[in-house]
């Protein structure tokens, strides 16, 4: 017994060290975000003191150059709205596929499976052209595209779950006079809540961090998402302002970490559930 405890303590120590090492890259960026820009690539591992220290200057410059606050707003808007639309539309579509057995629904389901394996590069050029022709180069249009592109995985996951809901409950509701719409929202959707959480987590992680799709589709003069803002720092100014870059990186990371600490349980469960079904 004694031996086992010692063993455990040793592992705890090792893992503590490993965890610190794991967090180190982020800590390093945090430290450098207070350093004058000319010193960042010269002395990345030094603590900013004396003339190296610039206070919040990098943050201010980063926010100004990238219009980061707006980018946050748009990222938040696009992510929340897209996920909401995906959950609503795809769950409904999935239920229809489960309950109506026709050739059409079968084909639709197969197409959804197919969509899951097609890499984005295959669609990237034509999608951006089509989106432009349909005047979808704005956050609203992007939501529609995310619904279309995210439908594959979401419909697949919802059908997987809804197949297992016993038909009797729904039939009973219908006999009681519920329309299919009432049945869906009162009976089916509440039962499918765990899947909703899973889909939300997976899609939100994807959409929030997505760089390529919004950068090709959105009208960059008006709208930027957070990843686009970060990448813009690298490109838009001819040379890289490492100071502003560090500030922006910290600002892009911190809200995510806070969000993660609060919703950790759901996120981890969502990932597990998603993986098992996917």
């Amino acid at each position, binding site marked *: 017994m004694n031996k086992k405890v010692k063993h455990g303590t040793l592992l705890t120590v090792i893992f503590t060290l490993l965890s610190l090492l794991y967090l180190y890259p982020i800590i390093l960026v945090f430290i450098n975000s207070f350093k004058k*820009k*000319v010193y960042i*690539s010269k002395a990345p591992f030094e603590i900013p003191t004396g003339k190296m220290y610039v206070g919040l200057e990098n943050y201010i410059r980063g926010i100004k150059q990238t219009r980061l606050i707006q980018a946050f707003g748009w990222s938040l808007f696009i992510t929340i709205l897209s996920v909401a639309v995906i959950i609503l*539309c795809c769950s409904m579509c999935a239920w229809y596929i489960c309950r109506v057995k026709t050739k059409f629904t079968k084909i639709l389901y197969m197409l959804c499976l197919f969509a899951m394996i097609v890499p984005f590069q295959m669609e990237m050029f034509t999608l*951006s*052209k089509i989106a*432009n*022709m*349909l*005047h*979808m*180069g*704005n956050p*609203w*249009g992007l*939501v*529609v595209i995310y619904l279309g592109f995210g439908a594959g995985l979401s419909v697949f996951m919802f059908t997987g779950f809804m197949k297992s809901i016993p038909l009797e409950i729904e039939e009973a509701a219908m006999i009681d006079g519920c*329309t299919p*719409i009432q049945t869906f929202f009162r009976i089916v959707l509440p039962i499918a809540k765990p899947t909703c959480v899973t889909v939300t987590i997976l899609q939100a992680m994807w959409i929030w961090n997505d760089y390529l799709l919004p950068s090709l589709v959105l*009208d*960059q*003069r*008006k709208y930027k998402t957070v990843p686009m803002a970060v990448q*813009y720092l*690298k*490109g*838009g*100014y*001819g*040379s*890289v*302002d*490492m100071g502003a870059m560090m500030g922006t990186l910290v600002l892009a990371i911190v809200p995510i970490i806070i969000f993660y600490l609060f919703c950790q349980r759901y996120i981890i469960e969502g990932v597990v559930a998603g993986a098992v079904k996917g």
Partner: protein
Amino acid sequence: MKKKKILALVLAASMAGGMLAGCGSTSSGDETAKGDKSSGKVYYLNFKPEQADQWVELAKEYTDETGVQVDVQTAASGTYESQLKSEMAKDEAPTLFQVNGPVGLATWKNYCYDLSDSDVYKDVESDDYILKDGDAVDGIAYVIETYGLIYNKALLNKYFELPDASIKSIDDLNNFQALKTVAEEIQAHKDDLGVEGAFTSAGMDSSSDWRFKTHLANLPIYYEYKADGIDSTDAIKGTYLDNYKQIWDLYLNNSTCEPSMISSKTGDDAASEFALGEAVFYQNGTWAYNDIKDNEVADEDMGMLPIYIGVDGEENQGLCTGSENYWCVNKNASEEDIQATLDFMKWVVESDEGRDMLANEMGFVTPFTTFSDYLPDNPLVKANAEYTEAGKTPVSWNFTTMPSENWKNNLGGALLNYAQGTGAWDSVQTAFVDGWAEEYAAANE
């Protein structure tokens, strides 16, 4: 049952409607922003990242004054062509864009509005500064620029005063051999002089590699054209490639950093090395003044030398002067937008605000007659004027005849590999000579 069906349709319609309404709603937002005075608007896709902020500011001033909406978007360094391509395909395409010279014009001439009746054209000093396609004026240069070896006079004087300095005056520094001697002796005495190296880092990050794959490569091309009496070619011979090699070697061997580091050195790195007085020479142009001013190096200590590559008679060589910034107006834009764009251009070169911004804030020398009272307070521009007065021959910008972006990229890759020791000079030669013929053929097929 029927009721339910109708309900279903209404619901579906409202959902689809919500989606589609979203698609159309941006244009309504624009209309309110546009103001009432004019229905046209301007979208300028700017090539020069160094002045990105100032253009945005200038556009805002114009909008405040006239109510006409002006959007300015700046492409990232090295991505102008691709961004122009993707923006031109959109239906809100740029109304004002740039080409870099004859090669750029060849790609875009079908998009160029004839500017021969425009006010801006009437303000141009001479036809040297325009691009023509037949009789049509397709492009107008808006900035004349000069590049060479920017140097720190104070540091160089400190070197001249060294007891064992072989060169004692700036007047003797007028050929490659002298430059090489100076650079190597500075490198050897870098601790005495308090510098990190003779030259700033030859960064090959995309924010800096154009200084070598394009601007430095101009010199061998210039001398070859001059020797052959031509001004463009479908197959370069590479007569002066050995000179290209020796200047590149000089940069690499007498630098602030090891050649193995240059792949990720940025334009900012080189600028800050010069600005902080860590290096004596910095190959760049008049546009770099904004990046290096107000630091350790005082304005009166900034000078510019011609880039000597070891060609006979180079004592009379001047700085490299020309333009790769030609304004073109998109003729596919709506009539109102074209008019708005022409008005904006006129305002930029004729109004006090526009002239002040271009000359004093952006530091541009322009080819417009309206700018006689607006000469930039840029010591690098003054250096060029001195060389011209002394009767030196300016080097023209022949890099605008390079066959494609891909040619430059391949040359850059080969230069980097050679510098790091991961490739041989042969591959630079291949990229330069064979690549030229291939890319020229591909671009003109």
